[in-house]
């Protein structure tokens, strides 16, 4: 009855309320905008039947040494709608899109060491493994687990990697081939964090 669907710009208000109600890590408006304008296919919301947003996942792509991977920026589900498997569904939706649209090799995320509920979700339900511990990752000094999960990788023809056949002009993609944006460093400002 909750519908998991792609987020639109109109959902941003509700998503931020949801974020605020669930998590200590809040982001600036432009960080949300940056996500939705750059990787709209990786943002999903859980919408209750009256049209209220009760959960969301915010994700992006990163490129490190030519290996393209997805990263979960934030995941939240309102407490009224927990124990319904919504977080799992949201995560599956985002992971699928990373894999199918961007050919991501793996997906990473950070989680507070103390957040047992979220840690269990990632480890037990979703099959993430601890990659390493990032000391004092959060603003309040708490450590984060950097967790990762392997995805299928580049099996699919990357939709950006097309040529302009039949045209005499060589063209350069300012950005087309990659999945990431240089604007990120400037925009992210705050450390990412996540919990459920």
């Amino acid at each position, binding site marked *: 009855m909750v519908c998991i669907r792609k987020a639109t710009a109109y959902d*941003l208000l509700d998503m931020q*309320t949801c974020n605020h109600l669930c998590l200590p890590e809040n982001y600036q408006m432009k960080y949300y*905008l940056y996500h939705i*304008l750059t990787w709209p296919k990786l943002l999903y919301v859980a919408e209750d*039947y009256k049209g209220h947003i009760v959960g969301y996942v915010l994700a992006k792509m990163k490129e490190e040494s030519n290996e393209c991977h997805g990263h979960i920026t934030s995941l939240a589900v309102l407490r009224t709608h927990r124990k319904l*498997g919504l977080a799992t569904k949201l995560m599956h939706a985002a992971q699928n899109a990373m894999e199918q649209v961007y050919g991501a090799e793996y997906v990473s995320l950070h989680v507070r060491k103390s957040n047992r509920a979220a840690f269990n979700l990632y480890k037990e339900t979703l099959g993430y493994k601890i990659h390493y511990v990032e000391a004092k990752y959060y603003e309040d000094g708490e450590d984060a687990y950097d967790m990762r999960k392997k995805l299928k990788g580049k099996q699919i023809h990357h939709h950006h990697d097309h040529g*302009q*056949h039949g*045209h005499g002009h060589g063209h350069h993609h*300012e950005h087309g081939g990659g999945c990431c944006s240089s604007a990120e460093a400037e925009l992210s400002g705050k450390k990412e964090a996540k919990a459920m």
Partner: protein
Amino acid sequence: MASKFGLAGGIPERRVRPIWDAIDSRQFKNALKHSASLLAKYPNSPYALALKALILERMGKPEEALSVCLSAKELLYKNDTFLMDDLTLSTLQIVFQRLDHLDLARSCYEYACGKSPNNLELMMGLFNCYVREYSFVKQQQTAIKMYKLVGEERFLLWAVCSIQLQVFCGNGGEKLLLLAEGLLKKHVASHSLHEPEALIVYISVLEQQAKYGDALEILSGKLGSLFVIDVDRLRIQGRLLARAGDYSDAANIFQKILELSPDDWECFLHYLGCLLEDDTNWCNGVPNDPILPSKHMDCKLSHLKEEVFDSRMSDASEFVQKLQAGTSDNTLRCPYLANLEVERRKHLYGKGDDDKLMDALMQYFFRFGHLACFTSDVEVFLEVLTTDKKTEFLEKLKKGSESLSTVPTKVLGQSITILKVQEVVGKMYKLSKSELEGSAVQMVELYCRNLPLSKDLDPQENMHGEELLSMACNVLVQLFWRTRHLGYFIEAIMILEFGLTIRRYVWQYKILLLHLYSLVGALSSAYECYKSLDAKNILMETVSHHILPQMLVSPLWVDLNNLLKDYLKFMDDHFRESADLTFLAYRHRNYSKVIEFVQFKEQLQHSNQYLVARVEAPILHLKQNADNIEEEERVLESLKFGIQFIELSNEIGSKSLTFNEDLQSRPWWTPTSEKNYLLGPFEGISFFPRENMTKEREANVLRVIERKSLLPRMIYLSIRSASALLKENFEVNGSLSDPKISSELKFLLERYAKLLGFSLSDSIEVVLGVSSGVKPSSTIDSDLIDWLNFAVFLNAWNLSSHELAQPDLDGYKAGSWHIVDSLLKKYISEKVRSMDPLICSPWVDLPILVQLVSEPLAWHGLVLQSRVRSSLPSGKRKKKGGPDSTSPPFHAIRESIQSSCGAIEDVMKWLREQINRPEDENLETTLSFLQGKGQNEGPGQVFKIVETFSSSINDTQLGDWISQAVKCWSPVDVARKIVTGKCTVLSEFLQMCESKMKLLQALKQQIAQV
């Protein structure tokens, strides 16, 4: 910063790198030093100048930066041999943009593109400039040029997006879309499409023209394979089929989607809608807008024949059974709710079966009854039942829950659900007072009893049974509504504060407390609650509605100023910066997001709250400075003497507003400007009142803003009009000094009167009548502040126009001074007399008193200041032969000052009485509300439960942190919070009055010297 061939803006890169590095590391002084040496070597390099401007801007020297930028621009234009490179231009662009000169940045690019017409990089820069300015036509033209130049798909799509934006914004219709379609068709024929987003745009162009068949053909052709996720394609296909009226194929498609994702509720509604050939979902809202999804469960009564309806519904039931059987996932609610929806539709068609519906509801309860979302899930289905059936269902629930579960958290969840259903079906409103009290007691007992369940939870997690306290609070508020006994408010505050002691982060408690503190007049404690919500970023738009209305009529000016300032800064920054982000969507080929984004910007820009804040912030500054006419004049000057607000007021008729507030979090009983349930008599409403009042709210906001935005100009003109007086008037024998001021003020008075629903002459009748006691004072009660403002401005106008001056036997007394004096005195003193001791009264009259003092009285104070100032001899020179200080006009001023002093004194006296009451006494009074004198009814029953619980805690059962928290709980502290919250408001108000008093005393002295 990129460079080609080691050159940056025509300068060797090694020379500029130190500047870049210094800027990056924010060492601007250092950067400026490097820049100076660079300029010594390349004095005429536009790039070197642009860098200098960039540094200056970052150092907070906007004027210098602008002038350097302009020199760079001039150099670019003057000398054609200069390199028109993107680096120089984009650097200039950054600075111009930060200086709010998008136009200058754009003209640089326009010039450059004119000089090098085939430079793609520059054209992209130019396109970006148009994006920032939302100039869709220019965007389109530039994108087409780029497309023609290199033939790339993305530039074509940029052009198509720009066309769609023109259409969405109402500039251009069918023809433009036809053009977009033609361009796409041609491109597809020769090059096909390569991006799913391009296909989405292509389909939306066709859909906007209702060419559903064409769109479907494309989707099912080769291009359809661009969608890598099947469900995405199917959703579009289903939508197109439904829009085309091909309901049976559409239903099949939605069925397929449900088989793939059985928890997709929206899809189920589409499926059912298509089965019943109901177009509600497809023709509502903006027909051309594929983006805004429909958000409700509205449906039309089916027009199908009975046997067709029956057979379709049995198909639906069969499919739903299949969905239920096909899933082993017991968290899926959709297939079970689908069952309920099928029964609901039958009801709406007139073929409902209550027992079947109740069975389905019970089934749903057995599966999901312990979840917090159960009640809101089934609310809409309960609505189709009769009152008796609702009660029957409630009984069934109670019985059903007995045998259900032994897991304590589930048992608790079900108990809460039953209580919630009781509220939703309206049963609460039928309970007697003592039954209601019993119900609140039961809720709080349940909360306390189940606290041990939460002992192992992490502190940031929500506790089991948390909502019980919110529910109990709602019951207590209802008890207040019925009995007017303030004790229930105090009790509600107590239990919520108790809950917060145990769990600091519960938003809902804080919001409830915020409203309760406001209602009892402890506004500064309410504001503390608001601050603890930590509403930042866009939450200032969605959440501040809880506090802003109360603050606008309060004396807490510093807090209000912060609230408005932070909010406006966020919104303005967002509007300034967000256009830049649009380009991300273009660059990443997320074309459909471009349109969404621009519409989202509009949604925020039309925010009603933004409009209110833009008008209220300057009015606050005017209030804050009203006791010093020179300061006030500076404020007015910064507001361009109110001209732009007059323009705003003129445009108000054409404005449509958006309401982005999150009203979900707002309890039904919280007062809005349209409705305050608690002020009216208790009405036996049969359900949860949650009306949609958007239309009324819009009209109301617009009406208020239209009036308020006249204020700054009227204040300015009143000051001028009052000073246009004595000297000139007496010198030139009473003729007008400045007819323009007088006529403009008259014009605005006419408008103001019209907004109050009267002609100017009728309004004058009204204020005359009320001030002289001929008309009852209740005549102007509903718009009291506006009427008094009107009287004040009327007097100011009369000072220069003398149109009202018809001295009768009493001479000046019948004049406009007297109207103002008697109205202010009458209403202020009346209010003061009728006020109860604040400690035991809710926040009803005080805001009116505050407004009387901070608005009409303050504006009148300005008129007096202006009048006195201009009657004083200029400089030290004592003017001989000036007006006689015993002449009637001076007498009137003196009387008016005296009268205002009297009014203020009354207020101050009352305030001091309240503030000086010993705190102990206040605390005692507050707590005494909860002591029922040994009776077992009235306020205090619920509080007793909490007290008993906290005095007999069991450490091992509750765990460490809960028992520690409970031990910290102190009712006296809460009472103190209420008392302090009230006293702070009163002290601020007293300060406001003292400042006015000081001013009036000073004026008295000054006039004595004339």
